[in-house]
């Protein structure tokens, strides 16, 4: 075994950086959409709307109990059957892999974030919401100004866990050929036979990404709970990767 890490300064390093950019883009978009989905679904489940609530429950149960890889494959391969042809053609020219990966990851993680949001909202006494409604605030207003700000302190640490899980799960997008970090490992291994060096570098990059995210979460949590009497316990539950 002869390892030569200096090769990382050349072509392989460039490929890895390209992969890193793609991983970051993928994570950012998926996180955004997953958060939006989670916010809506979690709130609907907490409010318990009669018709929407069972639908949201079905979505959360389904999405949490099926593997993310299979979801990615499903959205990638069935697009040409679900979408109208002209739309699919345009997406294909644009590079549909990226879109399918974002779609699948946001749907998968959206379900977990919905549970996180619901757990946060459940930690607030329902009377708060009722009082806000009784004082004449609208539905969205009482959520926005009364309930959600209080729930943030429970939601943020759990949300950061979800974010690291999502960053790790972006590696699955290589199954459909998105050229991100893990795909670049296969690339470098196949064409330059420098697999071990590339894999070491990529492992370290993922570790740094996750640790930085977790550290950012700790800081954010400390900032949010600076007025609280005691630190909020992190509850281990709801895992997704």
């Amino acid at each position, binding site marked *: 075994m002869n390892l030569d890490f200096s090769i990382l300064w050349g072509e392989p390093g460039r490929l890895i950086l390209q992969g890193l950019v793609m991983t970051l883009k993928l994570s950012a978009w998926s996180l955004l959409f997953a958060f939006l989905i989670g916010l809506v679904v979690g709130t609907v489940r907490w409010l318990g709307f009669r018709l929407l609530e069972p639908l949201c429950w079905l979505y959360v149960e389904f999405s949490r*109990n099926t593997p993310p890889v299979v979801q990615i494959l499903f959205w990638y391969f069935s697009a040409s059957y679900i979408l109208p042809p002209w739309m699919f053609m345009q997406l294909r020219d644009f590079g549909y892999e990226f879109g399918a990966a974002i779609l699948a990851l946001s749907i998968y993680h959206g379900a977990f974030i919905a549970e996180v949001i619901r757990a946060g909202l459940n930690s607030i006494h329902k009377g708060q919401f009722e009082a806000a409604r009784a004082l004449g605030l609208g539905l969205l207003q009482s959520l926005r100004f009364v309930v959600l700000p209080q729930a943030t302190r429970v939601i943020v640490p759990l949300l950061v866990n979800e974010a690291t899980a999502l960053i790790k799960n972006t*590696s699955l997008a290589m199954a459909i050929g998105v050229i991100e970090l893990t795909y670049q490992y296969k690339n470098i291994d196949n064409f330059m036979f420098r*697999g*071990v060096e590339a894999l070491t570098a990529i492992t370290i990059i993922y570790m740094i990404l996750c*640790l930085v995210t977790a550290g950012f979460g700790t800081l954010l949590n400390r900032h949010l709970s600076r007025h609280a009497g005691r630190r909020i316990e992190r509850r281990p539950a709801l895992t*997704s*990767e």
Partner: protein
Amino acid sequence: MNWERVWTAANWERLMVGDLFNTGQAGGLLVTLAIGFGAMVAGTVIGGVFGVMRSSERRWLWMPAMLYIQAFRNVPLLILVFWAFFFPPVIGFELSQFSSVLLALTLFTGAYIAEIIRGGIRSVAHGHIEAGRALGMSRLQIYLWIVIPQAFFNMLPALAGRYVVSIKNTSLAFLIGLADLTEIGKQIGARLMTAPIEIYLTLFLIYFVVNRTISSATRLLEKRERFNKIFLHV
């Protein structure tokens, strides 16, 4: 929709046991469950050891445990699978696809379960441990009769979540070519070429049934009386 082309007896047989009855090569749900349950059991053992080490007060015990947990929790499972499959040949021995996925998944699950177990141990009120000490129990006795029964009950929901995740995670075995449920599904899909929706919905259905069964089974234990009856004989 052409379900009748997907739901044939031959396809179901391949999804369940692979080519076990034809070529003797097991696959499908059988392999998925074997890896999933293997990783659950082995991961729980490893996680138990490291979780107890992590909650120790001695530096030489908690330091290595923390390093293990942080190292394996902050890396995608797929990268671990690649390490387990592509690295051994470099240093001169080979792992089969099955054992490398099992190894990676065990270490990954173990790191998470160690954190869960540490949380469970911390959840036991300190007064209970002091009471045990006051009654003259040894350290081992305190662990066996006071800490573990309470911690285990508190950990159950998180453990159940982890077990479901480890079944879900077996699905990326197909990326190194193991004939697990996802790979067989992909093969059937590639052979038919016209029914991706049906085949992937079938895969969803199978995974869903397996995972819901596991989480419902553990949910049964979350009733205190039932739990005591089974594990503590009271």
